[in-house]
Each structure stands twice: as structure tokens, then as C-alpha cells.
């Protein structure tokens, strides 16, 4: 069964450093998403992306965050200057279509900021 894959599984970074989280969505999916989950808390929406543009973003997704689809298969989340509070699990998801379609999630990248 096709799946969303994320790398790395765990990223440890010094505060203030840039980090790039990588995702390969399911191949025939057109919509891509990033969510995060702080330990013990809810899964929170960050951003949705379609046709090389951001469709929607949350208040968490400030100027320090950016997303990109650098080629036909990868989807990345960049955090320019990491803060301690960025420590969380980051999940990538994709869906085949936009409305009322299940979003399929990867297994996440655990980001630890020191």
C-alpha cells in the first residue's frame, strides 16, 4: 500500500539553527500538509499546499517557516531559526483531492531543539 515517507526520523538541532524536514507524499496525491504534535498534546495543523502554493496556514506557521516542493516527489518544511518551543513531532500528510478526502500521514520526524 502506498505510504507517505518522512526523513529523518529524529533530528537534533541547536537553537537558532535552520532545519529542513523532508517528506515524500503518495505519488498520485495533489495536496500536501504539515502538522505538528507537541509531546502529550493534540495534532495541530501548520500548512496546506497545492499547485506550488500555500492554500492555508495556521498562526503557528509564521515567517520562520516555509514549505517547498523542490521536485516532483519531495515536499519540505524549513524552519529558519529554531526555537526551543519548536521541539515536537512533525507529520507530513497528503490527500488525493482537496475536499472531503482522507489525509494520509507519515510516521513523522521528531525534532529536538537544544
Amino acid at each position, binding site marked *: 500500500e502506498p505510504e507517505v515517507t*518522512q526523513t529523518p526520523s529524529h533530528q537534533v538541532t541547536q537553537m537558532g539553527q535552520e532545519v529542513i524536514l523532508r517528506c515524500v507524499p503518495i505519488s498520485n496525491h495533489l495536496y500536501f500538509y504539515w502538522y505538528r504534535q507537541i509531546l502529550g*498534546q*493534540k*495534532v495541530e*495543523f501548520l500548512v*496546506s499546499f497545492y499547485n506550488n502554493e500555500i*492554500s492555508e496556514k495556521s498562526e503557528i506557521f509564521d515567517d520562520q517557516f516555509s514549505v517547498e516542493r523542490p521536485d516532483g516527489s519531495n515536499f519540505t518544511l524549513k524552519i529558519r531559526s529554531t526555537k526551543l518551543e519548536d521541539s515536537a513531532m512533525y507529520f507530513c500528510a497528503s*490527500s488525493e483531492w482537496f*475536499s472531503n478526502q482522507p489525509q494520509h500521514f507519515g510516521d*513523522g520526524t521528531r525534532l529536538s531543539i537544544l
Partner: protein
Amino acid sequence: GESVGLHLPTLSVQEGDNSIINCAYSNSASDYFIWYKQESGKGPQFIIDIRSNMDKRQGQRVTVLLNKTVKHLSLQIAATQPGDSAVYFCAVNSKGNKLVFGAGTILRVKS
């Protein structure tokens, strides 16, 4: 804004019994609802979804019930197995197709 909440944070059931996990949502305009299962160290795994034009949908051993009048959603798991032990999240769609997740219910299956 929207909020999604769960009534019970932890549910313990005996193997073979049926499980019912509940969820309340606040936005009456929500028209799409999903249940996810999350095992330790894994991402949310899609279980079943339901659209607002339905009040019941069945899958393999799972049933989702939607009561739009009281804005309530439930997941029923028949003949619960040890492999069903996980955290279960309901999620509802919102603007921009973002999903708003509930807090999660821990399901523990006792053998």
C-alpha cells in the same frame, strides 16, 4: 474557532468486547469527519471517515456514527483485539481543508 474534544481520555476494555470512543465538535458547518489510530512512534493512521450527509458508516469491525444535531461523533470497534490498543483521534475538516484534531483517547485492551 473550532474545537474538538473527547469525553474519555482513557478507555480500558476486555479483549473480545466492543469499544465505543466518543468525540464532540463545535463547528456545525463541519461536513467531513475522520477517525485516526496512532500507535506509539507512528503517525496517525486513517481508520474510517464519514460525510455530513450520512449518519452511519461501517468498515471492517469499525462503525462511525454521526449525530449532527448534538455535534457528536463516535467510533465503535467490534470484538476489540490487543492490536487495537492505541490512541484514537477524531478530526473534522475546516477552512483550507485543514483537519482539527481532538485530544485523543487511549484505548487499552486487556487480555
